C-alpha cells in the first residue's frame, strides 16, 4: 500500500488520513451503476525472466481490471485527495442511510483492499 511515513497509526490518526487515487487508473462506467477500474500492474521478476528465456521482448506492465459495485463506486467517487477517511465514511453512511460504525468497517476494509492493489495511496493527515 502506498503508505508514506509512519506504518502504524492510532485509529484517530488513521481516520484523519487522506486517500488519493493513483493517476494511472482508468474508469469505465457501466449502465447498472458498476464501475470498472483498469490499472497498470508491473510484472513480477519471475515473468520478466521468463520473457527473456523464451526470447520475447519483455513487457514491464500489463493492465488489470477490477469491477466495483455501486457501493464501491460511491466510495471511489468520494476519494478526491481532499477528503479524509472520516469524512468519506460519514458521507458514505449518510448517502446510504447506514450506521456510522457499519460504514466505518466496510469503507476502511474497502480502502485497504484498494491500497493493496495500488489503486490509492494514503497520505498522512
Amino acid at each position: 500500500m502506498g503508505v508514506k511515513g509512519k506504518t502504524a497509526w492510532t485509529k484517530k490518526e488513521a481516520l484523519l488520513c487522506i486517500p488519493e487515487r493513483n493517476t494511472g487508473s482508468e474508469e469505465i462506467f457501466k449502465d447498472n451503476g458498476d464501475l470498472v477500474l483498469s490499472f497498470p500492474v508491473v510484472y513480477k521478476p519471475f515473468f520478466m525472466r521468463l520473457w527473456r528465456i523464451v526470447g520475447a521482448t519483455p513487457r514491464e506492465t500489463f493492465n488489470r481490471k477490477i469491477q466495483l459495485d455501486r457501493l464501491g463506486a460511491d466510495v471511489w467517487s468520494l476519494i478526491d485527495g481532499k477528503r479524509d477517511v472520516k469524512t468519506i465514511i460519514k458521507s458514505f453512511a449518510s448517502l446510504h442511510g447506514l450506521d456510522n460504525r457499519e460504514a466505518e468497517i466496510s469503507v476502511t476494509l474497502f480502502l485497504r483492499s484498494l491500497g493493496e492493489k495500488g489503486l490509492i495511496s494514503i497520505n498522512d493527515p
Partner: protein
Amino acid sequence: MLPDHGCVKKQLAWNRIAFKIPEAWEIESLDYTHLIVSEDGNPKIEIKWTESPKSFTLEKHLKKIISRSQKLLNIKIRKQSTPDFFLHSLPGFDFFFFSWESPSSKGAGTLIFCSHCRRVTLIRFFSNLDLTPNSIPHLVLTSFTDHPLTGHVPWHLFGMEFSTPMQFTLSDYSFKPGYFFVKLLYHKIHLTVLSWGPASFLLSGKTLPEFAKDWVPGLKGFATAETSDRGSYLEWSYRQGPFKNAGSLPFFSRYMRFTLFRLLQDTQNNRIYGVKIDSPETFEIELMKGTIINGS
C-alpha cells in the same frame, strides 16, 4: 466538556442493558456481557455485567467483583461517596461510586446492583468525564436500565431497532457490515432477527421475494403478503424435518420443526428485516406478534 448535554439522546440497547449516549459515540466492541463505547477510537465508557449467585451478601459480592475487575482491567479502584445530586428515576437500583486509575488513564465509575434482576453492572467512564450535574456520565447513568420495563426486551444498535419477548435469551449474534443477526432461545424455540443493508442497494432491480430467494436459503413454499401496523411484509410458513420426506416416516415426525419467517423492508432505516421462529411445537402466532420491528 460542554455545559449542556442535551446531546445525550442516542439510545443503545444490548442484551437487556439500555442507556443513552451522545450522538458521536459508537459501539467499539461488544460481547454477551460486555460493551465498550468510543468516539473516534477513544474509549469513553466500558460496561461489564454479571448475574448474582442465588445466595450472597451484597457487600462480599461487590468486593469480589471489585477485586476481580482490578486484576482483569489492571486498574486501582477507590470508593467515592454518592454525589448529592444523583438520583435514578427507577426503584431497585443501588449505586456504588468509585474512581479508578490505571498506569495510563483514570476516570470515574460506578457499580450498580439491581434488586429486581439481581444483576451487577460495572460502568467506568474514561478520562475527562467527571460526574457533575447534567454531565455526560450523569445523563448516561440516569438513563441506564438493566431489565426491560415492559414484557419486551428492546434492542437498539448499529441502526437496528426491534424488541423481543422477554423470555428469550441471547444465544448467538453476528454484526458484519451488510448483514446482522441476533439469535435468541427459549426452551426449544429459536427466534432469529436478521437485518441486511443498505436496502436501496440490495433491492435495486430486485423484488423482496427475489431477494429472499438469493439471501435466505431454505425457505419453503410460497410467500403470502400480509400487512401489519409496521407495513407490508412477506410470510413463509412451513414444516421441516431433519431430512427430505422425514415427515412421512412415523419415527421422524417427532423431529419435525415448524418454521415461520417474515421479511419486510424498513424504508426509513434503509434496511431489510427478517424474523424467523422455529419450534418443535405448533407455536402460537402471538409469539411472532411479540417480536416487534420498529420502523423508527
